[in-house]
């Protein structure tokens, strides 16, 4: 019964590191310098001896994109795992219960209607306006779904999923309406949001994502014990010294912040929060003390792999990444449903 978590984490980080190296190397542009590691190394050191184009591709194009895939993937998987813990169900993921839709909806509204607000608010806020919108949308959606599907410590799964369907339909309708209202340049933004893409990665966005991750993970990653104990029932978790109400509220708030930020920067990339916890559950049973930290790394691995494939498969064009994650996610969704039916 030795604790192998540090070992698993280390191995997972190694996989991620290797994958990142491969991903940096893959792409339409061929580097003059043979080793991509050398270029990355000198970019990070601020060395100017490498060819300028190489340095540009790494520093401004591939590296920010790889980093963003890692950060967004991690966020999506962790938010999925946390929601599953709070709702006590493996189908509670940001996409299926409408949190992503809520965020997309509010992001769309801010993009189109934000124009009029933009002139009266300070410049610094322009950039984060969409993020704030997405966060509000995500928070509203989670709170609504939780309020109507959960009572006396139990979740009604049917209501939870149908609430997600309802919010998604509302989001779909309103995003459609926004598309109708939108001007040309806004339209491009909107399409980007509904399909999801990591193409717009920049260091500023990565910086914000990193801050969000540092803030939320420092609280959430260690809550595996609490999520495990809640499987007993909330009253019984309290007998184990766990402040259930407080943890639930903070988790909902932080998950909304994570999903909101991810949607604002990369649009709605679905299913990462479903696939990763599902695979980890198969390997490690539902022990949140293990799957919560591991999902942070494996979400990153999944999205980075998907993004690398999406930009190399039909190069020089790009496959929308949402298509790839949905291709992987839909079978997982069905597998969970079949399991669920068996247990009924």
């Amino acid at each position, binding site marked *: *019964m030795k*604790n192998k*978590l540090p070992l698993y984490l280390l191995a997972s980080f190694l996989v991620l590191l290797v994958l990142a190296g491969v991903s940096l190397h893959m792409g339409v542009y061929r580097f003059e310098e043979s080793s991509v590691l050398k270029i990355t190394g000198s970019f990070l050191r601020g060395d100017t001896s490498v060819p300028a184009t190489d340095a540009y591709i790494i520093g401004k194009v591939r590296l920010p994109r790889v980093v963003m895939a890692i950060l967004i993937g991690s966020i999506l998987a962790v938010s999925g795992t946390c929601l599953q813990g709070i709702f*006590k169900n493996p189908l509670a993921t940001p996409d299926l219960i409408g949190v992503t839709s809520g965020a997309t909806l509010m992001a769309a509204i801010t993009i189109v209607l934000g124009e009029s607000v933009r002139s009266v608010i300070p410049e610094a806020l322009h950039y984060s306006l969409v993020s704030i919108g997405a966060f509000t949308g995500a928070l509203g959606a989670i709170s609504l779904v939780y309020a109507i599907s959960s009572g006396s410590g139990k979740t009604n799964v049917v209501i939870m999923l149908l609430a997600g369907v309802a919010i998604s339909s509302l989001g779909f309708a309103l995003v459609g309406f926004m598309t109708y209202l939108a001007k040309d340049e806004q339209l491009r933004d909107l399409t980007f949001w509904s399909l999801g893409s990591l193409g717009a990665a920049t260091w500023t966005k990565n910086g914000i994502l990193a801050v969000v991750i540092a803030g939320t993970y420092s609280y959430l990653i*260690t809550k*595996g*014990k609490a999520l*495990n*104990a809640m*499987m*007993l*029932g909330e*009253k*019984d978790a*309290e*007998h*184990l*010294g*766990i*402040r259930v109400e407080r943890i639930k509220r903070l988790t909902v708030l932080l998950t909304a912040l994570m999903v909101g930020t991810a949607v604002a920067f990369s649009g709605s990339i679905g299913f990462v929060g479903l696939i990763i916890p599902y695979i980890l*559950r198969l390997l490690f*049973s*539902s*022990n949140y*003390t293990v799957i919560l930290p591991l999902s942070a790394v494996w979400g990153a691995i999944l999205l980075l792999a998907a993004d690398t494939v999406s930009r190399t498969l039909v190069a020089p064009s790009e496959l929308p990444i949402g298509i790839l994650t949905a291709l992987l996610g839909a079978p997982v969704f069905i597998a969970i449903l079949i399991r669920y039916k068996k*247990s009924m």
Partner: protein
Amino acid sequence: MVKGHKISYSHKSYSILKGVDVSVEYGDMLVIVGPNGAGKSTLLNILANELSQNKEDIYFKLKRFKEWNVLDLSKNKAKFSQHYNGDIPLPVRDVVLMGRYPYFGSIPQSSDLSAVEEVMKEVGIWELREREYNSLSGGEKQRVHLARVMTQLKNEVAHKLVLLDEPLNNLDVKHQYQVLELMAAFAKKGNTVITVLHDLNLAARFATRVLMMKNGSVLAQGAPGEVLTPETISEAYGFPCSIWTHPVRQHPVILFGN
């Protein structure tokens, strides 16, 4: 140890508990008995700090529950509930390890693992440690939770409290006795056990004190021999019985029916 004065509780306009006085001392094993719907579980839940609607204060070790540090409290008091979520997709040892959650941060220490092993062997479920909790029978699940609750109180604290809500459901006769013997031994060490039981004969055999409830009030309270009389039992259950004395152990034996 635990003192509650005039405990009342109502759900909507229906009053479940009407001014119950309870006081339990160190070393006591208090068994709460009574017919269905008498308010036994509600009383236990209030004593366990699960329901806080009542205005009266419960004193646990001379302090109100809200004056306790949450973690300290969980090392002093544990509760076994009547209904557990049926679906806990974890191996048995991880479920029992939950009892150690108040003691470690992220990674269980060797002292936690040895506490888990010791209690699992005591309760007789060490062989089940690698099994999936969901694949166990009802009685085995009960014993897993019992082990988890006792693991939670495996520490150096003097005078601990364990509350059990019908811990014998689904258990065969051997395990019923095993559980109650474990509890009696726990109480003997200066701890306190409060449990709801349905079997009056087991109450007579193991309790140091019995509290008989009916319609949200206390019908009788005291030593088993004082409470378990034909008059009180008939009044509580509306069913005739006769009382005999156990030939060896001298505690009351109840025979039901005419």
